[in-house]
């Protein structure tokens, strides 16, 4: 079985350890993982701005690069959703699309539904605030959201819940948007920052030590605010927690690549 690792561009460039942790998890599960290095970006920033012409060639490249794999796994709900829910707007006539969409998984979804791994041997003795990313929640349905009255398994939380010593803090607004929203963060800066500050405050009020999310983009925005405020809150991607990384409370250093910690 060949697994293609789909690493969003900003993770590749700014958070390589998230990709390394993802790789460790998949390889630790005995999977053969490849990283097609000609991949760049799935085109989400362009598509979300409405510039489909600019996004189209990127979606087409994605299909070329990832078609050979049995599974395509990505440590981001938002980029996974781009492939699964929005590529049809761009390359809907490509005969490979449907099959690729059905083979593309967000990491937690993959570890929950397709290739379960036991994390009960892991330890993470920290109070965790789980930031549910909107695209993970409402586009990929990685869990039930507070608007719909539908019970759904919470895939991110249930993976983390296996880890020893990890306790969840309860937020006032369990699934409020962090305000990142891609180009929204810059285009609507005032709203974006207000949303992010409120999100951080909810975690602080709940007594979280580490804010964990399955989308590094939300965390990039929230960490930017945490760091500016000097708040005592670390941020980690769920892959880093599951791969056995420790939080660095000095948030500025929390995402330095550390390798070799295979589960």
């Amino acid at each position, binding site marked *: 079985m060949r697994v293609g690792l789909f690493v969003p561009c900003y993770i590749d460039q700014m958070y*390589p350890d998230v990709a*390394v942790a993802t790789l460790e998890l998949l390889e630790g599960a005995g999977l053969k993982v490849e990283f097609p290095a000609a991949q760049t970006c799935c*085109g989400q920033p362009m598509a979300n701005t409405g510039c489909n012409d*600019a996004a189209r060639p990127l979606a087409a490249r994605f299909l070329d690069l990832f078609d050979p794999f049995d599974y395509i796994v990505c440590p981001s709900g938002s980029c996974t959703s781009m492939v699964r829910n929005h590529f049809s707007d761009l390359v809907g006539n490509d005969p490979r699309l449907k099959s690729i969409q059905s083979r593309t998984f967000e990491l937690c979804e993959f570890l929950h539904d397709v290739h379960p791994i036991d994390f009960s041997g892991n330890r993470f003795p920290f109070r965790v605030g789980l930031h549910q990313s909107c695209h993970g929640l409402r586009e990929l349905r990685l869990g039930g959201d507070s*608007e719909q009255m539908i019970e759904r398994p919470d895939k991110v939380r249930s993976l983390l819940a296996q880890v020893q010593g990890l306790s969840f803090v309860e937020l006032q607004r369990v699934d409020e*948007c962090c*305000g990142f929203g891609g180009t929204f963060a810059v285009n609507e800066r*005032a709203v*974006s920052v*207000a949303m992010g500050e409120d999100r951080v405050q909810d975690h602080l009020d709940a007594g979280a030590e580490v804010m964990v999310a399955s989308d590094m983009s939300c965390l990039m925005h929230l960490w930017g605010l945490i760091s500016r405020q000097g708040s005592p809150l670390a941020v980690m991607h769920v892959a880093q927690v599951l791969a056995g990384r420790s939080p660095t409370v000095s948030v500025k250093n929390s995402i330095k690549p550390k390798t070799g910690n295979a589960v």
Partner: protein
Amino acid sequence: MATVSEHPEKAAAYIADRSRSRWHDGALWFVRSKRDRMAHSLPEWEQLRSTASQIKAHTIANLPEILQQFEANAKARGVHVHWAADAQEHNEIVLEIVRKQNATRVVKSKSMLTEECHLNPHLEAGGIEVIDTDLGERIVQMRGERPSHIVLPAIHIKKEEVGETFAKYLGTEPGASDPQYLTEAARQHLRSKFLEAEVGITGVNFAIAETGGFVVCTNEGNADLGASLPRVHIACMGIEKLIPRLVDLSVFVRLLARSATGQPITTYTSHFHGPRPGCELHIVLVDNGRSRIRDSDEFRSALGCIRCGACMNTCPVFRRSGGHSYDAVVPGPIGSVLSPAADTKQHRSLPYACSLCGSCTDVCPVKIPLHHQLLTWRQQIAAQGLLPVSKTAAMRAGSMLFQHPRIYALAGALGRRALRWLPKSWVYNRANPWGLDRDLPEPPAESFRSWWQTNRQGTSVDEGMKSKEAKNGK
């Protein structure tokens, strides 16, 4: 020609008063929480939503026939039925009816349609006094403002400010802010207006084709007074307010109040089936762009909106930026779908006033895929060339960069290096709106692709400069 008003600037101005923005957010979150509790109390909630959405889809698909059926049945009950193609026609029809009565005093209960058509200024220009009788709308009217929310028109105003307004216009005690005292003052004031009025105007929540009757939902009973005291009642409705059968109503009244305010049902759900003896009942059916939305495959389902306001209460952008930042009669997610349909250029920033969190779509009782429609609007706005050149150019440049992995890797390496070495003032300034309030991530020494080459392929690369990684693709 309409001026273009941009949401980001208006939102920033509102948020500059952080305590007010927080207070507004909290007030609406409270309503949303009530809605959640109410929705939870019905095990069949999602089934109701599906049914409502199907009824509306059916109605919109068969709108011409259903409208004709309604007209015939309403006329058979002695109702005068009028048709208006647009806002102008609607206003003229209403003014004409008022004039025929030689009337000069009109009371009006809440109706977003008359707001959309700007009826009040039209009647006032014709020498008619129009008094909004919904308490929130009356407050807004006295202050010379517009409603900031379709269900809670004065949600942006604090009770102390209401006290100031009433002191000025109703002669209440200066400094008073006790809601009970202020409400009582408003009630006395409105009572005299009700008694003097010669014509009452109401909106319509649901019109039933099968019976020719219609339903008006309020919490204050003001529509009932306005419809019952004067001799003439004019009900104004958009053509999408139809439902086919009386039994369908049960689905919508259960959803409406729960979604809007978290009540099991509105305090007054009043049915009107024809004029009282010796009185007149008029219905004005208004298109004003609705047929055009009906013709579009992308936005048709937006006509199913029952104006509950739940999408506004849940929208994290609306809650923080206030309803006036949308500069549109209907603000929030549904307004950002409907307003560009009326004037794309003027409202081109609204589909971008959204983080695409999708909460509106999941909260909507008739399952309008609001955030998907906002994304579709972005595509249409870009395709119509209504995006600022700076944006389209940036997107095109990004696309070119991402199509060339080698250049992308090089640019990434240079960017990270620059972030590490450049003086702070070069990185954090006006040219970088991200960094005004947020730190940029600490750039790592190498990218993942570089790490992969070293650790998985054994080829160490001098990051970025002599990158061979493009060749290592598939």
